[in-house]
């Protein structure tokens, strides 16, 4: 690798790389993000390599290992270029067949095609797949086309052109103004206007100044940042270098969650490659601007996603937040001016520089510009990462892209914003996804987690779950969060276990107000949100738990009973085999029964019954 010392050097390299790549050369792009690797994709990749070598085709057919393609429900998956044939749920032993039939003979393997559940149509090409059709894959767009560990791949598809433009043709202040004009808002949860943050940091007095990438993605159910860092680390890095130049910082940090080893690996490799090319370090591309980045791993603390706790962790201390009456832009890391942005926020920057603020502001709504990546998970057919323009209706995301609710069950709510957010019921499904609209509904955009729930999810159990999570993750510094979250959880547990009392809902409301006002940081003062929003929209479920001691969704174990439907039971005896407490019994081929006194409602029998004979009451 040779160091690029001038702006022209980058463009020259880009030209050489593009010339040396034949867009018509067959290429199998296989997703090796963490999710697909969990499906065993490494085995598929290994056998593809072996099969290519056996046939001496390594030079004739490319095998590209890419980051997340987004359609996580359907892994292992690949896209075959140049036609963009889309194969999904690939068997780990299908390598030979794919090469022989599709690559060599041009035959489509039907069983590997995605079938549209509505039209029953078999989809051959990625761009025809309903999951992708309605998306606007801007930030995620390159994920399927590059190998994340190849800086050449990134440069070949246009990478680092924004950096060249910024350093060569724009003054720092102009870059800040462009980001302000684009109205990019933070993608990590706060939604604060990024340009204003940059401006404040740029104007603050203090040296050195720091720029930080917050990759401590802790919202359970959200994994957009992981996939960005794994799949296109250079995009994030390019955004950071541009930002650092605009702000006047030479020191950057990327703080990655401890539970993301592949993301750490890929961003580390990206930084190394960027340094070798001279895109990081001293006198970048001869501009006179120097900037470098260090990677720090988190230690397993959700609270470190909060900026002041993150700074504490970087300073070698426990991740306890501090008050922010003086903004971090003035006194942040080591009490110096610090600009902290989320991974996805940084990833948006090269697009704004390349195509201009006006173009960017043309996407989205008046208050929320650009696209947003959501992790669409839970009770949804098409689990995965979706990128849509701001303003798209929730209904479109859940049904048109997400494919609706599996197993014929009924939609109940969609939870956004993680533990700081709220549950949005069906009647608001036509609301646009927008920072301010979601806040009006009692939820928030958050980092992008979108958890779909059906009629078998209990809306008293859901806030109890979030509070249990926050109780463990609370740093413990301030009384309202440490003691208040715990007491809220206790009351909700009482309600879920049949000990709810009249007045509990009012008490939860009162406690919520005190915590919202009194807690020290955003973890604490948003902790009551799931409770507040479920009381607002699902008060009937709270009343049923408290007054009738019933759980309408059939979830809360102490309030339900399992019963065997004699009409459906075939007496196969499977439930007896799996029951750890001997609560089920019966003669072979005769309807069985459950001893309610012994039954712990563990769910093993219901899970094993092939005849759906076990009913929840």
């Amino acid at each position, binding site marked *: 690798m040779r160091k690029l010392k001038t702006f022209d050097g980058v463009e020259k390299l880009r030209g050489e790389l593009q010339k040396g790549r034949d867009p018509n050369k067959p290429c199998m792009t296989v997703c090796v993000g*963490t*999710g697909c*690797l*969990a*499906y065993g994709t490494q085995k598929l990749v290994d056998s593809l390599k072996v099969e290519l070598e056996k046939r001496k085709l390594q030079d004739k057919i490319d095998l590209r290992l890419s980051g997340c393609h987004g359609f*996580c*429900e359907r*892994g292992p998956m690949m896209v075959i270029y140049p036609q963009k044939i889309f194969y999904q749920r690939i068997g780990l032993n299908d390598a030979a067949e794919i090469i022989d039939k599709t690559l060599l003979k041009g035959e489509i393997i039907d069983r590997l095609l995605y079938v549209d559940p509505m039209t029953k149509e078999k989809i051959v090409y990625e761009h025809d797949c309903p999951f992708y059709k309605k998306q606007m894959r801007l930030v995620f767009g390159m994920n399927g086309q590059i190998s994340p560990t190849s800086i050449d791949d990134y440069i070949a598809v246009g990478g680092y052109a924004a950096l060249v433009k910024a350093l060569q043709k724009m003054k720092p202040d102009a870059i800040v103004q462009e980001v302000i004009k684009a109205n990019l808002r933070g993608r990590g949860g706060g939604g604060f206007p990024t340009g204003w943050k940059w401006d404040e940091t740029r104007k603050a007095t203090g040296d050195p100044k720091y720029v930080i990438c917050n990759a401590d*993605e*802790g*919202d*359970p*159910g*959200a*994994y957009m940042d*992981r*996939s960005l860092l794994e799949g296109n680390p250079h995009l994030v890095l390019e955004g950071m270098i541009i930002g650092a130049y605009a702000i006047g910082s030479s020191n950057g940090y990327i703080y990655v969650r*401890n*539970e*993301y080893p592949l993301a750490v690996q890929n961003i580390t490799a990206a930084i190394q490659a960027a340094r070798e090319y001279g895109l990081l370090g001293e006198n970048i591309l001869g501009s006179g601007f120097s900037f470098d980045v260090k990677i*720090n*791993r*988190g*230690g*397993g*603390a*959700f609270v470190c996603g909060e900026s002041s706790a993150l700074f504490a962790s*970087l*300073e*070698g*201390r*426990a*991740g306890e937040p501090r008050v922010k009456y003086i903004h971090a832009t003035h006194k942040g890391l080591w009490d110096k001016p610090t600009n902290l942005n989320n991974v996805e926020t940084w990833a948006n920057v090269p697009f704004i520089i390349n195509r201009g603020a006006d173009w960017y502001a043309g996407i989205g709504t008046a208050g929320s510009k650009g696209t947003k990546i959501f*992790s669409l*998970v*839970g*009770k949804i057919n098409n*689990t995965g990462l979706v990128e849509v323009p701001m303003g798209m209706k929730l209904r479109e995301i859940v049904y048109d892209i997400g494919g609706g609710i599996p197993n014929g069950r009924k939609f109940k709510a969609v*939870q956004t914003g*993680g533990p700081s957010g709220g549950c949005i019921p069906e009647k608001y499904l036509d609301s646009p996804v927008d920072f301010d609209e979601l806040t009006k509904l009692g939820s928030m955009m958050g980092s992008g987690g979108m*958890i779909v*729930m059906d009629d078998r*999810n209990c809306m008293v159990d*859901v806030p109890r*779950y*979030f509070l249990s*999570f926050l109780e463990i*993750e609370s*740093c413990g510094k301030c009384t309202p969060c440490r003691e208040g979250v715990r007491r809220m959880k206790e009351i909700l547990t009482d309600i879920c276990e049949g000990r709810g009392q009249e007045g509990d809902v009012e008490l939860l409301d009162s406690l919520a107000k005190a915590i919202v006002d009194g807690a020290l940081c955003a973890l604490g003062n948003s902790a009551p949100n799931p409770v507040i929003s479920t009381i607002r929209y699902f008060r009937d479920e709270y009343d049923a738990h408290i007054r009738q001691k019933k759980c309408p969704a059939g979830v809360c174990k102490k309030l339900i009973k399992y019963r065997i439907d004699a009409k459906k039971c075939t007496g196969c005896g499977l439930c*007896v*085999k*799996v*029951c*750890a407490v*001997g609560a089920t019994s019966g003669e072979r081929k005769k309807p069985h029964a459950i001893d309610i006194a012994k039954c712990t409602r*563990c*769910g*093993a029998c219901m*899970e*094993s019954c092939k005849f759906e004979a076990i009913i929840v009451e």
Partner: protein
Amino acid sequence: MEAKIKNIVKKYGSDRSYLVPILQDVQKEFNYLPQEALEAVCTELGVSNSRVYEVATFYKAFSLKPRGRHHLMLCLGTACHVRGASMIDNHIQTTLGLKSGETSADMEFTFETVGCLGACALGPILVVDGEYHGHMNIAKTTKILKNLGKKVEADDEKA
């Protein structure tokens, strides 16, 4: 042990702001954070015992007790929760007799629950010794535990 600690601290320029990464490396070396190692870190870095102990106990990634031969990590993220992860949590707790963060007396199993692993399409997920097992249910959990050598009572009684 002191020599190993010295090297780790030196690798980070003896800079106390790298306390968390230093402890991560120490844990990787010894499989947990022995008290002796933590005290050596204090000496090498020039920070108080109180600070090191605070950091070592604050972050869930660290274990001050030796960990078992098999490491089971269950995801309790929201997506996994709505798909029934808590039932698997109860099953493991009942079968292994371990709550999250605990190690069995015979040092065979350490059980942990995590906020989210970021592989939600496969939920519920159980990671066993670094290997991801997706779409978990009670039956699959029982099978995995049996494969790891754990006697599971339900099946044994009926055998």
